[in-house]
């Protein structure tokens, strides 16, 4: 049996009196693609942000590569966090820097990689997402689909072991969703471990190894995509699927 790269044990998160995550225990194995789906407000983003400790869990453990992140000091957390790339719904590109500078910043400042090496790597990544001709553009001049692909390249520049995606296509015009999903599919095929929160059921069906259905602060169901979509176990999931597949 392979050792899980991410293991969550009894993870809980409260915002004041609001219990957003309630005792979640799950595992992600290396190379797996997990798609998290569920109704809005169910705690998906909070869960994802607890994985790289952007949000501090109220109780429970998040183990990454065998180390319990919740007990580590800030410095260690910073170094482990760089191994988990994250892509946001709103891209969050740095507007005061060019595309190339966006990608180079963290490798140069965090990993102390030389400008030349960082530039070379940035161009490779831009080619991978088909945007090398936009290297010197500023983010505001990009379309949503282009911006999100740059954001993916920026996260990849840190050579992460895991990529976390929080609704990467939700802010895009429909005609741009495809180009971003293609990049993600390529990544999955190259063996990247991914946790993807999305409403793109087609992507879940064709790319995911497991589907986690999340609602009311619990992972209600953890299943293969085939099983989940054809034969959902919980009433909550059946209800959700009937609404979105209508």
């Amino acid at each position, binding site marked *: 049996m392979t050792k899980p790269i991410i293991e969550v044990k009894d993870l809980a998160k409260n915002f004041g009196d609001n219990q957003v995550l309630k005792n979640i225990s799950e595992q992600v194995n290396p190379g797996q693609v997990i798609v998290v789906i569920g109704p809005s407000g169910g705690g998906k983003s909070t869960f994802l942000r607890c994985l*790289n400790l*952007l949000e501090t869990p109220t109780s429970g453990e998040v183990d990454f590569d065998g180390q319990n992140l919740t007990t580590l000091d800030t410095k260690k957390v*910073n*170094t482990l966090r760089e191994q988990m790339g994250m892509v946001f719904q*709103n891209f969050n590109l740095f507007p*005061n820097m060019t595309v190339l500078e966006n990608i180079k910043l963290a490798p140069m400042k965090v990993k102390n990689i030389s400008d030349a090496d960082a530039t070379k790597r940035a161009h490779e990544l831009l080619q991978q997402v088909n945007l090398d001709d936009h290297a010197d553009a500023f983010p505001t001049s990009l379309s949503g689909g282009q911006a999100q692909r740059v954001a993916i390249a*920026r*996260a990849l520049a840190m050579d992460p072991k895991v990529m*976390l995606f929080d609704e990467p296509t939700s802010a895009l015009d429909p005609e741009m969703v495809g180009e971003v999903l293609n990049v993600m599919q390529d990544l999955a095929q190259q063996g990247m471990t991914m946790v993807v929160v999305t409403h793109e059921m087609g992507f879940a069906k064709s790319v995911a190894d497991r589907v986690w259905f999340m609602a009311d602060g619990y992972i209600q169901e953890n299943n293969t995509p085939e099983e989940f979509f054809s034969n959902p176990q919980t009433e909550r999931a059946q209800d959700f699927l009937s609404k979105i597949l209508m």
Partner: protein
Amino acid sequence: MKNKLIMAIALVMALVAGWTATTTTAQAATDDSLAQVQKSGKLVMGTSPDYPPYEFQATVHGKSQVVGMDVAVGKKIAKDLGVKLVVKSMSFDSLLVALQTGKVDMVISGMNPTPARRKNVDFTHTYYQGGYSIVINKSDKGIYKDKDSFVGKTIGAQTGSTMYTESKKQTSGTTVKGMTSVSDLILGLQSHKLQGVAMEKPSAQAYVANNKELAMIPSNFDLSASDTSASVAFAKGSTSLVAAANKSVDQIRKQNLVNKTYLPAAGKYLKTNTVNTSMLHYWKAFLKGIEYTLIITVCSVFFGFILGVLLSLARMAQGGVFATALRWLATAYVEFIRGTPMMVQVMFVYFGLGLIVNLPALTSGIIAISLNSGAYIAEYIRGGINSVDKGQTEAARSLGMTKGYTLRYVVLPQALKNIWPSLGNEFITLIKDSSIVSIIGVSELIFQSNIVRSDTYRGVAPIAVIMVLYFIMTFTASRILNHFERKMQHD
């Protein structure tokens, strides 16, 4: 202006009083004032150089310096003590505070040794016995005879001076208006806001001799000797220093040095001053003013900015008791600075901090204005940081960047771009507001213009000149700032 200044001084005095109370009594017990001066090799004299012929600015060998009969008296005392004389200029109101806080060793500024002043400082014997006159417009000659002719009219006198107190006491039905500088009073007279100005006789003579439109009449005030005489003031309890100075003062009286030597010499300086009263002739004085104004502004914005960044970060500190304390302190500081007048802050730094470390006026001014502008800049920066989308921080943190790096490379650059116009405004405001340090004698533009005014006996022209100069500075600054603003808006 006058009231604000007096209130400011009262506040500083009150703050300083508690502080000095203990030190002064200790000083009285063991008086080493004379030994201290001899050890340091210099005697620092405070004076308000807008009172010819007592003290005024004149250009000597191309350099502007303080001259007049009081300076001659100071030189004589210093020479007899075997030390060097250093002259420090400041407004008349500030002189006694400066003495009490050790900024100066003595004050010679045509000061009358009144009983009220004697409570706070020690005086030497009198070195000059003068009298009061009233300066009027020549066109009014014959209308006014003496102090009693001004019923229903207004006369002016220098704030904080004996003339001011006595004019109030000894006239009835006459309004007495106080102003800080004699040049302003003369201007008030010439623009008919005042009908007469009470001042010491030698000063009145100097003004009348140099301005054809003025005349003088006797005041006929009923005065005690202490009200019309001038003495040198020393800090309370410096008995040995007073005794030593008295030897010089006695010689001055015995040999009649003031009338024989000092006044004629001062008169010569007055003549050289008034030979050429065109503003162009004084370009050096104005240039020096601009230089100091810019030095103060640039330094204060620079240090204020650093302080502002630190304060704004402290105000946003989170987690732990230490962070809470830091946040509380920074908030209290910002509120306190924003809730007190800059003028009081300037005086507090100069006179108050001066008790611990002896800072030059320029340094004190820069410190005070930096401390002040830091509080304002902190609020701009805090607003700027809050205006940066939280997603930016999350993206940077998710890339493994530390809090510090995130702030430095991602948040602050964007925050600065957002608040650049506010920072620019602060800079331009400081060009104007830095003039407040003129009260502690820093030779910035306002201070310099006051000197030119008392040198030339011209009230309005220097004001017009500095108005234009200030505008040129602020206008140029705003053009430059705009240029950078546009450069930052690359997309």
